[in-house]
């Protein structure tokens, strides 16, 4: 075990990917000389050179589309979009090309591109830099959407994503980049198919992903003090959703709280609630609870940003309502 940060874990994953496969290259705004907007790719330009660590112009649509084209042409591009709000300028390429070409071509054109997108709130960056839009992308057939929320996943999801013959979007939590913890020295590729129980429990299931995992775990810790045993499920992969792991947990706890940094209406939390209602309604002993972002553009001041987002206290209150 060694102490490392989420940022370093991502960098280690990138370095390994670049070292083991000549077809892999990284491109995006300020990924090279600057070292990455969040310093994730620091040092990679010096190590791998300008051919493989490519600074792009401010042209989200062009360089994401170029990533798609390069993937079609036999490369394994990793494209970084500076933050999720900017990814909207490339949405055309992601939805109309990356997610669609395979189907539209009758199976001829797989697009093995990996797109890394820093996302989420927590740094007082206000309403154009703080949103959680992973759930939107998870709506799109043809994409795999993953949300690493732990050091092991930060370290290991990229390698697996690069083996995927189809497009994968990796959403990295901006607020977690500096967080540190222990990571196994032999940490490597992880699966991208399954949700994981991060904390076992028997009274209530807390489903979370990405930036909502931390408040869910913190709430579970506190609930335990009061004698409430909360199980925490980390979705990890937002598309395709591992419904079975969620259902399996709910069948044991009979209570469900979904924690989502996205807005409530039309959110992933709504999808989870719907699936549980479809497949395990009679297992429930209480109505499904959802703890989501308040439906407001995320504001700048700390107290309002915090108030807009699910915190441990909100999760605890929801869990208590469910447990009764």
């Amino acid at each position, binding site marked *: 075990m060694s102490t490392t940060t989420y940022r370093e874990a991502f960098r280690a994953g990138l370095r390994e990917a670049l070292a083991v496969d000549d077809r892999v*290259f990284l491109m995006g705004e300020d990924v090279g000389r600057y070292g990455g907007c969040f310093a994730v790719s620091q040092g990679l330009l010096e190590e791998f050179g300008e*051919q493989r660590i490519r600074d*792009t*112009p401010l*042209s989200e*649509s*062009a*360089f*994401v*589309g*170029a*990533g*798609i*084209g*390069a*993937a*079609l*042409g*036999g*490369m394994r*591009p990793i494209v970084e979009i500076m933050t999720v709000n900017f990814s909207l300028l490339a949405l*055309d*390429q992601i939805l*109309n*090309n990356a997610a669609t*070409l*395979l*189907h*539209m*071509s*009758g*199976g*001829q*054109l*797989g697009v093995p591109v990996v797109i890394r997108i820093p996302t989420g709130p927590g740094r007082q960056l206000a309403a154009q830099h703080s949103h959680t839009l992973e759930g939107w992308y998870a709506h799109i*057939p*043809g994409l*795999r959407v993953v949300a690493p929320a732990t050091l092991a996943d930060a370290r290991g999801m990229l390698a697996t994503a690069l083996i995927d*013959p*189809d497009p994968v979007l990796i959403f990295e939590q901006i607020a977690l980049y500096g967080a540190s913890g222990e990571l196994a020295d032999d940490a490597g590729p992880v699966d991208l198919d399954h949700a994981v129980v991060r904390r076992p429990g028997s009274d209530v299931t807390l489903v979370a992903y990405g930036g909502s995992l931390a408040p869910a775990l913190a709430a579970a810790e506190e609930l335990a003090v009061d004698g409430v045993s909360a199980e925490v499920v980390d979705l990890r992969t937002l598309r395709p959703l591992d419904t079975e792991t969620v259902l399996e947990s709910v069948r044991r706890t009979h209570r469900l709280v979904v924690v989502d940094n996205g807005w409530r209406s039309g959110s992933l939390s709504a999808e989870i609630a719907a699936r549980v209602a479809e497949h395990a309604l009679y297992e429930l002993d209480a109505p499904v609870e959802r703890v989501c972002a308040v439906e407001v553009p995320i504001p700048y001041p700390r107290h309002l940003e915090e108030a807009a987002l699910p915190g441990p206290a909100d999760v605890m209150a929801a869990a208590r309502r469910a447990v009764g």
Partner: protein
Amino acid sequence: MTASLREEKDRLELLTEMLRIRRFEERSVELYSSAAIRGFLHLCIGEEAVAVGVLQALGADDAVVSTYREHGHALARGVPMQAVFAEMFGRTTGCSRGRGGSMHLFDASRRFYGGNAIVAGGIPVAVGLALADAMQRRPLVTACLFGDGAAAEGEFHESLNLAALWRLPVVFCCENNQYAMGTALARSHAQTDLALRAASYGLRSWAVDGMDVLAVRDAARLAVDTARAGGGPCFLELRTYRFRAHSMYDADRYRGKAEIARWRERDPVELLASALVAEGVIDTARRAALEAEVAAEIDRAVEAAEAASLEPVEDLTRFVRSEVS
């Protein structure tokens, strides 16, 4: 073969290819009227010289990215006529298994990357294909075809800059047919000289008579050779005209009959055919024989496409993710 004999043969081939496209499009109109083809159908009648001239300049391993008005590009690339008809009939033998239709023709084996119906949406992909070839040190070029309307999109400008910045082997081919749906060039572009605008990105740029297939072919050869030799991306503005409406839904109310008639005087097929007749390369009998050959090919292709099966509904959700064996 002497140089002049070879050139004669080449010009005959250019004429044959343009005729195939013209008659293919005309048959498509009939098939649309009989409801065998549905959805959007965009014809390239009047623009055959662009398709044939550009595609003739490419090598077999070069890549092509196109738009929804791409029947001519696909045929000139060598996609079998039967596979294009079958695609428009929604059959499994279609070049996209029937999943794409008229606007989404693909043929990976010929590096024909479609068939993009988002105006300018294919341009960044073309840049990426060229990037992949450059990074793998393959001496290949990507031809990217799009319309004058696309030149107003951000993706066009982003892509020209990126390709020029990285000196990628892309030949941008702007089919300037004077209209984007019903909007004439001057009503959507402040600067209507598209070749001039492209040049501002620092790439080599030419405006070409898009009704003269030899001019198109020669310009395309120069551009392709330049890009292949490491000279960076090139831009061709190919000035042409679509004789028909934008699509089968278009009532064509935004332009005058006289304007259309004026352009029809420069019909690219007739321009070349009459030159060949005047020079004695072909006579009327040979021309008629050529027409008969093309008609027979079309008949065979339609027949084969009609005989093909539809994909079973059970297969609806295939090709959303790759089928890994």
